[in-house]
């Protein structure tokens, strides 16, 4: 339709689409799915790191981890707000998360088993997230783009903190170095999976790229991540758990092994190590918080009625 052509032209010119403006239904739906899933990932993503707050090894590390988890909740808030501008409420999105109708990033279905995982999550998981998110600062939808700009600033800070934990562990006692290596072994492939399956197997990619909801292909971003991360691992004195890893002079990047995509799809299906616990934790928090939310609403109604009566 002419409307759609005009819309696409705006995007092609690099204009931002704002909430009240016309947009194709598919654009709106795709954005809601993508922003919602991202918001859910921030919320569920509190859990694997929250798991170590009470056991953080120093007061300083505890404070940093608390600040980080707080930031994640804050990112959730920005993103749910961005989604709300598309006409879907936070509670509706929560309901879809809780019923399993919407997903969150599968990386959070892996457990955090040692303190080194706080390093690996910051370094690799936030690192991969940033790789995904930096281009999204230029996405076509205004509120989403602005949320991404705020989020990226904080995420790169988190990644540096994660790398600092890895550095301390890798240069620490033999047991600490073992822990660091073990964390890298466990998180390497799940981090690679964060970019999604190879583009040739990815369904929604083409249209999303045209709409500038997706800015790069999965494989491009994965390659970029490997290129940046491998030298960081070397600097730590740790080995990437991939025997096929090798520098390819021609493409000016590393050749590397694909993750086990059957594992990826198993985790998506709910058979990951922590799927059940993560979702249960969120549903329990929500259900047990019902009286709290209802109490606040009831008070707000009473207060509003009192104001009305006074007027």
């Amino acid at each position, binding site marked *: 339709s002419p409307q759609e052509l005009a819309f696409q032209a705006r995007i092609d010119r690099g204009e931002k689409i704002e909430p009240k403006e016309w947009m194709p239904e598919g654009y709106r739906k795709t954005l809601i799915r993508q922003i919602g899933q991202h918001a859910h990932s921030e919320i569920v993503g509190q859990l694997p790191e929250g798991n170590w707050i009470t056991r953080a090894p120093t007061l300083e590390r505890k*404070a940093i981890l608390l600040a980080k988890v707080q930031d994640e*909740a804050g990112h959730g*808030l920005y993103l749910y707000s961005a989604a709300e501008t598309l006409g879907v409420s936070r509670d509706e999105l929560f309901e879809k998360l809780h019923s399993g109708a919407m997903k969150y990033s599968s990386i959070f279905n892996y457990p955090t088993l040692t303190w080194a995982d706080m390093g690996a999550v910051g370094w690799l998981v936030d690192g991969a997230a940033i790789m995904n998110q930096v281009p999204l600062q230029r996405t076509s939808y205004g509120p989403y783009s602005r949320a991404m700009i705020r989020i990226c600033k904080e995420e790169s800070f988190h990644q540096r903190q994660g790398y600092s934990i890895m550095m*301390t*562990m890798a240069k620490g006692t033999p047991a600490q170095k073992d822990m660091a290596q073990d964390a890298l072994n466990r998180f390497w492939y799940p981090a690679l999976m964060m970019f999604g399956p190879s583009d040739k197997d990815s369904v929604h990619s083409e249209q999303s790229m045209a709409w500038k909801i997706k800015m790069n292909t999965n494989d491009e971003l994965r390659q970029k991540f490997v290129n940046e991360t491998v030298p960081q691992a070397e600097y730590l004195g740790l080995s990437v758990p991939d025997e096929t890893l090798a520098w390819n002079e021609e493409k000016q990047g590393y050749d590397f092994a694909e993750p086990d995509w059957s594992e990826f799809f198993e985790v998506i299906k709910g058979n990951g190590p922590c799927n059940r616990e993560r979702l249960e934790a969120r549903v329990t*928090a929500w259900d047990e918080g019902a009286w*709290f939310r209802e109490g606040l609403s*009831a*008070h707000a109604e009473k207060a509003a009625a009192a104001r009305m009566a006074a007027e």
Partner: protein
Amino acid sequence: RPAFFEWLCRMGDSTLILGHRTSEWCGHGPALEEDIALANTALDLIGHTQFWLGLAAEVEGKGRSADQLAYLRDAWHFRNLLLVELPKGDMGQTLVREFLFDAWHHLQLDWLAANSSSPRVREIAAKALKEVSYHLERVCDLVIRLGDGTEESHRRLQDALDRLWPYTGEMFTGDAVDATVAGAGIAPDPASLRPAWDALVDEVLEAATLTRPQTRPDAQKGGRQGRHTEHLGFILAEMQFLQRAYPGATW
């Protein structure tokens, strides 16, 4: 000086343990705003702990650090109020506990920032006061709204209040350490803060339509002298695991 060290541990241990309990909510709060506020409160309390235990370590002068005080003492060497080590319970218990504690904490810091004979104490208190003013404001508001919310939210807050009340007297019960520290002008006589605390608590409870318990407020005490509840040992087992399991490592 030993009394000053002891008193600093009492301040720092209470913020540490309350920070720990508060941080247990991370990712499990009833609303996103609450998740953020609780993480922020815990973060502030851990920050205060770094100051208080840092100064305690200096005053002790035995070369221990704030981290060593936090991570390498067993329960009977901890000096926190019993109130802060009780399980987090539901959000009602968490909020009422924070309210009862903050009402005291704010008065204490206010006095310290203005009057303490120790410049270091004044400085720490002044920094912490800003944050705790905000905690207190937020929690009073929530207690009022939930107390005067639904029947269930009212009941939960009243239950929490009844449950926690016997632990409040400890904040105002002085001993020889307090007498020495008060004598040196470092800190107030604990009992002297009671009237202002009572007034604030009564005001908030009234607005919240909650009933002030008639039970003894001083039935439970001993934390500030190192006699704790059975809960503290479990907190420390968890909190101190890495420092205990990997002695001497740098993190």
